[in-house]
């Protein structure tokens, strides 16, 4: 389709000009999208003590300041702990809700779906202030990492739910029925049929929740206690001005987030091929026993 329209349009010079303009625009956009991030990373290796231009030489010094800052290390630890707890909660809650949403033939399914995805649609500032009021004034709780875990889970769980639900929707239920016909009980059906099929989606959702939690600022800002997470630490620092150490911390956080994302893209794929291979081997074994029991991949 694209090739067909292209061949017609190249005939006219004006169209070619327009097309060249569009390419130029796209290039500009990619520059626009990446330049501030690249700049931030570059400046974290800059010798200049003011964390800005000009670049006076290259150093790893600012990264070693991370190792010497107890505040920063405690913030990193808090962030990781919160992210782990948030991941666990959203994986369990999101997956179980996704199952119910897709599987049961209940009424108001659309209403439930909208209700459960509302926390993504509502601006974070509203979730933040409402949770602050509710936890402090309503429940009389002290703000702590627990309140942060709760607040972030409200925001991350819908993502897990959506990811797992979309996987479940493309799921061939006859596989489960077949397993049931062959005498597998609910537990075995879950272990041998459902889990291998949705496992990668749950894993991807969990990783997504982890990254979101690690980066979360908007909601956390309102319900954080004395023990702060890394984004909040960065924020309190940049309020006083950019320092090269902050550039280094930011670079670190960028590398971690992108690293986890890369894992999230690669690992489910590896899991899927592994499962397919195991299943293929099993099918071969079955075929060796009785040629009729061949199983399509």
């Amino acid at each position: 389709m694209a090739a067909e329209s292209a061949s017609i349009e190249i005939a006219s010079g004006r169209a070619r000009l327009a097309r060249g303009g569009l390419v130029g625009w796209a290039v500009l956009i990619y520059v626009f999208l990446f330049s501030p991030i690249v700049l931030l990373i570059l400046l974290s290796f800059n010798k200049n003590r003011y964390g800005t231009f000009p670049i006076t030489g290259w150093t790893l010094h600012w990264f070693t300041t991370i190792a010497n800052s107890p505040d920063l290390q405690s913030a990193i630890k808090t962030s990781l702990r919160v992210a782990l707890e948030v991941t666990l909660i959203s994986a369990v809650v999101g997956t179980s809700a996704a199952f119910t949403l897709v599987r049961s033939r209940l009424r108001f399914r659309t209403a439930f779906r909208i209700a459960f995805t509302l926390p993504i649609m509502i601006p974070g500032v509203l979730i933040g202030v409402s949770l602050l009021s509710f936890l402090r004034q309503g429940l009389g709780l002290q703000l702590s990492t627990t309140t942060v875990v709760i607040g972030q889970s409200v925001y991350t769980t819908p993502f897990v739910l959506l990811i797992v639900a979309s996987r479940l929707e493309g799921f061939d239920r006859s596989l489960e029925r077949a397993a049931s016909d062959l005498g597998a009980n609910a537990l075995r059906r879950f272990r041998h049929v459902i889990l291998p099929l949705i496992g990668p989606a749950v894993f991807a959702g969990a990783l997504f929740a982890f990254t979101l939690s690690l980066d979360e600022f908007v909601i956390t800002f309102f319900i954080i206690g004395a023990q702060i997470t890394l984004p909040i630490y960065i924020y309190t620092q940049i309020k006083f001005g950019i320092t090269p150490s902050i550039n280094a911390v930011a670079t670190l956080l960028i590398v971690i987030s992108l690293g986890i994302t890369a894992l999230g893209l690669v690992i489910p794929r590896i899991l899927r091929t592994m499962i397919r291979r195991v299943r293929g081997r099993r099918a071969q074994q079955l075929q060796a026993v009785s040629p009729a029991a061949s199983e399509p991949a």
Partner: protein
Amino acid sequence: MAQYTGFAPAMVLFGLFFAAPMALIVAYSFWTQNGYQVVSQWTTANYQQVFSTSVYVNTFLTTLWMTAAATAVTLAVAFPFAYWLARYVSRRWQRPLLFLVILPFWVSYLLRVTSWVIVLGNHGALSRLLGLVGLSTPSWLLYDRPAVIFVLVYLYFPFAALTLFAALERFDWRQLHAAMDLGATQARAFRQVMLPQIKPGITTAVIFVFIPILGEYLTPELVGGTRGVMIGNLVDNFFQEAQYAEGAAIAILIAAVVVVLLVIFRKSLEVRGEMYGG
């Protein structure tokens, strides 16, 4: 009833920590502030206070036009890009190029704003670079509304690009040629053949960009200065100072705009279902 058991954890999480807090905020906006506490005496004083204080009203109106402007610019920037990607890029390259657009999303939101503080801020990269060639930075680029709008466009561009691309990808470009063969000018073919078909995509893009921008407080806080303040910052200030009742009233105003938008656009989403045959 048993089939609902899977919802139980979600009901607890969302019921207790999303629905109940939202309900409380609604109640707070109608309750009375007493020192640092809110007492359950019903009143409309909070809203009256908000609507009769010109600073608040002005901030609300400014926020609305800034949000509208940022949304318009984002879509205007994203449309030619999405058009190029959908029409002129071969299928093999579309996915990787689209992936590159989403990649900045994986960098923390706070850091994406921060990176612009490094560029635009006092003694930032831009003022240094302009200084090298003997220019001083125009003041509106630092700590003013244009800076806020600029950074907002940066933050929400991927939303718009993705949605517009999804709409344009489904469009059959041969229809344009058909229309032009039948005597339509290019502009008319765009307007009468392409536009109606991609309109739902444009609407979705508007929703995805407008709603989150409306609640922004970090971007104005970091690059907006005193003139760039948005309604989210007001809410933030009220709650930081424990003025929950008035803060809640302003928060509810934002929520009201969001709900109204969602209701309006819900209809256009239904239209979309019909258009593509479900």
